């Protein structure tokens, strides 16, 4: 399976990446190499293997519904590019 430049462009859009034509060509080549590499897995016979949901053989890890301290607001907002002291501020969003 080879990825087309259009497919890579679509993935780039989903990831909010703006690629120049040259970058798109490079990425398409590199991504196809990665996919090819992973495709080696097709050589393994998985007929009797159960699908794996998680690599660790554990399940049912829960925590109790108990309060733990949250961050002070000024600390929570400290790394924000923009804030009014109460909220994170972002450019206006058009739906």
């Amino acid at each position, binding site marked *: 399976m080879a990825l087309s430049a259009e497919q890579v462009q679509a993935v780039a859009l989903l990831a909010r990446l703006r690629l120049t034509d040259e970058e798109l060509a490079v990425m398409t080549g590199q991504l196809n190499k990665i996919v090819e590499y992973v495709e080696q897995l097709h050589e393994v016979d998985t007929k009797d293997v159960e699908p794996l949901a998680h690599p660790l053989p554990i*399940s049912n890890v829960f*925590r109790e*519904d*108990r*309060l733990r301290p*949250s961050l002070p607001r000024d600390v929570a907002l400290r790394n924000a590019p923009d804030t009014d002291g109460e909220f994170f501020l*972002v450019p206006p969003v058009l739906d």
Partner: protein
Amino acid sequence: MATSTEATPYTIVIGLEVHVQLLTETKLFCGCRNRFGDPPNTNVCPICLGMPGVLPVMNQKAFQLALRAAVALNCQIARFTKWDRKNYYYPDLPKNYQISQYDLPFSHDGYLEIPTADGGTKRVGIIRVHLEEDAGKLLHAERGGKSQVDLNRAGTPLLEIVTKPDMNSPAEARTFLEELRLLLRYLEVSDCNMQEGSLRCDANINLHVQHNGQTVATPIVEVKNMNSFKAVEAAMAYEARRQYEEWLRTGAKLGEVPKETRGWDENRAVTVSQRRKEEASDYRYFPEPDLVPVVVSEQMLQEVRSQIGEFPAQRRLRLAAEYGIPEYDARVIVELGKAFADYFEQFARGLENPKNASNWMLQDVQRTLNAKGWTIEQFPVRPEKLADLVSRIERREINTHAAREVFAEMIESGRDPGAIIAERGLTMVSDEQQLKAIVDQVLDENPKVLEDFKKKKGKKRKQVAGFVRGLIMRQTKGRADAALVERLVNEALVARTGVPLE
């Protein structure tokens, strides 16, 4: 109730997608408080802010509540369930993905029975129920300004309930939501408050039009932005009419145009086109590597089933039948939750007339809970103690006025009603000779009252009698037997003035 009297050449087909917030203390994957209305960005931590290197851990209570809801909705419970990342960019989603469930939701294929207009019931199928995290809240900017993001809600537990397209009228959609709310409130899964957003509902609707002996399906439209059950009903009714007119005009069928999303405009009472999806959204789901799967054991299921016990629809009927209270009261009591209904039953068993229990529960008790922000479990007066108090009204030992005073002190001090009544001398004065003497004394001291009574007519004359009753109550510090006072005052006024009561 579903009503469909209008004869139309089409059938309405409605499916709902409902999101409810779970009544946990903390968020789904971190220990931040799960509460509506706190100051913005005060219930946040590195996990729900989506900082790198943190590890989410599933809240056990959230999973139990989700199981409880799914079992109550008659769903098949998956023995093996896992979570997935749903990837999209939006400022209220700090991680740029939502932890949700994709191909292995914890439950599927259930149903909810709803009452129909003809007194029967109808099953609305549930396709799936899954557990996911909520996003934060984006407050849209004024023109030109910046938008504000509050992440208190980010990561709070959310149940997504998707129905089959089994509802065939706007009223049925509303009834479904009412029954769902009753069930989830009673089971203490969610408070289902649409105003506060703890229940949110989107609808998919289209028509099956009878045309030249064939059934034609119109394009499915998703309707959003409905903020009350009434709005859901109104939006569905509007949308059905609009789709029929559009079909008459364009003849467009299902599959011929891209799916449209429309928003309900409450003020104009219309739906407004928001967008047409040219392509299905690509959320690039993949298994959430930070969470391990959950295996649901038979023991876990047994536990959940035993927590549910009697279903609210059955309990509502039983309360009305067993205690002889109005169906409306029974409905409200059950809707206030299992613990509230349990309290009612213990309280009512200690009374002569259980209607007094529902009155006290829905008035005095409910008012106190609201004022103090308590749940019924936090209410300091045990049901036997409250029954002790109210049964004293039934036995005419105290009047309602005095009982309210005792009730207030019981909440404050937790003391027994008998002790408070004795200490404050609140025993009802119901000795006829004693009260008659007080009536005579009051009338002797207020001769003007007799003049007024003679002069005034009808309602005005009755008001004079009311004024005298007030004087007697003041004289007895509110302890007099109100019914007896009324009779004695009326008799004395008529006797002294020689004019009738009306």
